[in-house]
C-alpha cells in the first residue's frame, strides 16, 4: 500500500522534506507548539460554540425569565443564546475552555517571542518569521477583542462602546471607519452579525494563513540550534525527527495541556454572563480589558486630556493613547530584527548574558509594559488609598519611565557579575588543570 500511495502522492518526498524535520531537544522549544495547539483547540471549541450561538442583537423574550404579557423581558438574541449555551450540558465549561485557551494562546505566544528575542533567534535569516509572528500576535489580540463582544452582555456592550470610540478617534476618517466596521453608529442594529463575521470567518482565516506561512518558513529555514548542537556537531542540524520521535512527545503535550485547560474550564469561572446581565446604561465598575491589552488601558488612564486640530481633523488623547502610542510600541517590536546588522546567518541560539544590551533592553521593555499595566489599576489604587487622585498621574508617569531605566542598569550590573563569576570559574578550572597536568609529570 505504501508503494501504491507513493506512486500517486510521492509520500517519500513528503517524508524527506517535512516529516523528517528535526526538532531541537530543549523544553523552551515547546512554547510555539503550545501556541499552535491552543489555536487548534480554540477552533474546535469555537466551532462547537458557533453551532449553538445566535449572531443577532434583535430583542427576543428571555425564555428563562419571560416577564409578563404586557411587560415582556426582552434581551438581545446573542445574549439569550449565551444563556442557553450556559444551560446546556457542559456548555458553561465549553465557553470557559474557549476563553481560557485564548488567554493561554496569547500567553504562550508572548513567552515564545521572549525566547526568540533573548536567544537572538530573530536574526538573519529569520527576520520574516519574526514579522509574521508579530502579525499573528496583533491578529490574535483582535480576534480576542471581537470574541469578547459576542456574548453581548453588559460587559461586552461597554467594551464594544470603548472599541467603537477608539476607532472613531482616528482623525479625518474615524467616523466613517467606525461606522463601516461596526455597522453604523454604536450600537447599530447589525453590530453582532458584523462582529460575528470578523470573529469566526475573517480573523481565524487570517490567523490560519499566517500560521501556515510561519510554519512553512520554519521548516524551510530550520530551527535555530541550541548551544549543545554546536558541541556535538558544528554546523549540522541536530534534533529528533517529527515522525516518529517528536510526534508522540507533541501528542502527549497536547493531551496533557488540553486536559489541564479543560480542568480550568470546569472549575475556574470566567466571564459570568448572568452576573453582568443584558446591555444597559448602568456602567460596570472596574471594567478592564484582558491582561495583554491592559498596558493600552493604562496609557489611556494616565494620558492628560488634550485635543487639537490639524488640517481639519481632530487629534485627541484617545487617538494618541490608543492608536499612536501602541503603534510606536508595536513598531519598535517590528523593528527588532532591523537593529541587528550582522551579515552572517545565525545558526545557534545565543546565551543572553553574552548580549547584555539586548537582554537589558528586553527586560526594561517588559518592566515598561508592567508599569503601564499597573497604571490600568489607577482607580483601584486610588480607592485603596495607595494614591490620591491628585498625585496618581504624576507618580504613575514617573514609575512608567523610572522603573524600566532602573531595570536596564540593574540587568547590566547582574550580567557583569555573572560574567565575572564565570571568568573566575574558568581561570580556576584552567589553574586546576595546569596543576593536574604538572602533577602528572
Amino acid at each position, binding site marked *: 500500500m505504501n508503494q501504491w500511495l507513493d506512486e500517486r502522492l510521492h509520500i517519500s518526498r513528503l517524508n524527506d522534506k517535512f516529516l523528517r524535520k528535526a526538532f531541537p531537544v530543549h523544553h523552551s522549544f515547546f512554547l510555539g507548539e503550545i501556541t499552535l495547539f491552543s489555536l487548534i483547540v480554540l477552533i474546535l471549541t469555537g466551532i462547537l460554540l458557533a453551532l449553538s450561538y445566535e449572531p443577532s442583537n434583535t430583542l427576543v423574550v428571555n425564555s428563562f425569565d419571560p416577564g409578563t404579557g404586557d411587560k415582556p423581558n426582552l434581551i438581545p438574541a446573542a445574549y439569550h443564546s449565551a444563556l442557553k449555551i450556559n444551560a446546556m450540558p457542559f456548555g458553561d465549561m465549553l465557553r470557559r475552555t474557549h476563553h481560557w485557551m485564548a488567554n493561554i494562546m496569547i500567553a504562550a505566544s508572548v513567552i515564545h517571542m521572549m525566547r526568540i528575542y533573548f536567544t537572538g533567534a530573530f536574526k538573519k535569516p529569520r527576520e520574516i518569521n519574526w514579522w509574521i509572528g508579530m502579525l499573528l500576535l496583533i491578529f490574535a489580540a483582535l480576534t480576542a477583542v471581537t470574541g469578547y463582544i459576542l456574548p453581548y452582555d453588559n460587559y461586552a456592550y461597554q467594551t464594544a462602546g470603548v472599541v467603537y470610540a477608539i476607532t472613531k478617534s482616528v482623525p479625518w476618517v474615524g467616523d466613517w471607519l467606525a461606522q*463601516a466596521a461596526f455597522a453604523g453608529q454604536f450600537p447599530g442594529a447589525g453590530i453582532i452579525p458584523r462582529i460575528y463575521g470578523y470573529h469566526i470567518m475573517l480573523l481565524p482565516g487570517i490567523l490560519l494563513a499566517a500560521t501556515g506561512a510561519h510554519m512553512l518558513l520554519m521548516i524551510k529555514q530550520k530551527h535555530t540550534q541550541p548551544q549543545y548542537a554546536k558541541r556535538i556537531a558544528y554546523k549540522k542540524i541536530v534534533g529528533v525527527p517529527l515522525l516518529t520521535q517528536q510526534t508522540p512527545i507533541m501528542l502527549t503535550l497536547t493531551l496533557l495541556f488540553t486536559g489541564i485547560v479543560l480542568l480550568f474550564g470546569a472549575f475556574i469561572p470566567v466571564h459570568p454572563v448572568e452576573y453582568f446581565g443584558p446591555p444597559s446604561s448602568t456602567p*460596570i465598575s472596574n471594567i478592564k480589558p484582558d491582561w495583554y491589552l491592559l498596558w493600552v488601558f493604562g496609557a489611556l488612564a494616565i494620558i492628560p486630556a488634550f485635543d487639537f486640530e490639524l488640517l481639519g481633523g481632530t487629534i485627541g*488623547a484617545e487617538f494618541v493613547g490608543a492608536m499612536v502610542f501602541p503603534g510606536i510600541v508595536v513598531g519598535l517590536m517590528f523593528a527588532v530584527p532591523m537593529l541587528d546588522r550582522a551579515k552572517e546567518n545565525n545558526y545557534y541560539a545565543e546565551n543572553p548574558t553574552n548580549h547584555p544590551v539586548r537582554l537589558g533592553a528586553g527586560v526594561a521593555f517588559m518592566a515598561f509594559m508592567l508599569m503601564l499595566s499597573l497604571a490600568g489599576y489607577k482607580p483601584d489604587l486610588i480607592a485603596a488609598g495607595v494614591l490620591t487622585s491628585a498625585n496618581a498621574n504624576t507618580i504613575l508617569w514617573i514609575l512608567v519611565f523610572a522603573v524600566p531605566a532602573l531595570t536596564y542598569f540593574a540587568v547590566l550590573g547582574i550580567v557583569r557579575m555573572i560574567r565575572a563569576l564565570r571568568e573566575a570559574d574558568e581561570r580556576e578550572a584552567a589553574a586546576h588543570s595546569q596543576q593536574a597536568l604538572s602533577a602528572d609529570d
Partner: protein
Amino acid sequence: MTRYKRQDPELTRRKFINAAMGGAAAVGGISLISTLGAAKPAFRLTPQLAPPLAGDIIVHSDPSRYGEPVKVSDLSEQLVRAWPAFKDEGGKLVVRDQDPTSVLAVYRFPKGQIVEPTNLEATIDGEIVAYGDRCTHAGCNVEDNKQQPGLMNCPCHSGQYDPKQGCKVIGGPPPHPLPQLPIKLEGEQLVVTGFFMSVPYGYSKEEDWKRYTEQVQEALS
C-alpha cells in the same frame, strides 16, 4: 562590442503580460473597494434614536423602575440615571433609549451648591440639574465617585467630573465637560426644554453638534 541596440517596434510578450496584470489588479482593486461602500449602513433618524427634545419627560432607566417618570422626591446627591421619553399620538410612552448619547444623569443638590459654569437658568431652582451621562472621552456611562460624594467618576479611564460646576472635567482624559440639559418642572414631572447645551459624546466640535440639532429639527418638522 557593438553599440547597436535592437529597436523592437512591437509590444513584447513580457510588456503585454505586465500591463495586463497591472490593469487587472487596478480594476479588481477598485471594484473591491467599491463594495466597502456597503459596509456603512445609512443613518435613519427614528423617534427612539432622537436626542432629548423640548417637551420630553424624563423617565427612569433603571430596569426595576424602567419608564416611570422621575419625581423630585427620587432625586438626591446620588446619581439618578434616566432617559428622555414622550407620548406618541396614541398616548403610548416612547422611550428614546436607542442612542446611548441620550442617557441622562439627574442630581439634586442643596440650594447654593450648584455654581457657575453651570447654566443656572437651565436648572430647576438651582437645585435640580441634568446632564448627558456619556463620558466625552470614550462614551462610557459615568457613575458617582464612591470616595468623594457629589463628584462623578467614569469607570472606563478614570475621567472625573464635578456636577456642581457644570460637570467640568476635574481629572482624567475627557476633552469636554458633560453636556447640560435644560429642564423645568411641570407639575410632578421633569420636562426637557431644549437640546444639550454643549457638545455631547461623539461630536468633536460645537458646529457638528449644531448641524446635527438642525438636521433633527428639520427631520421632525
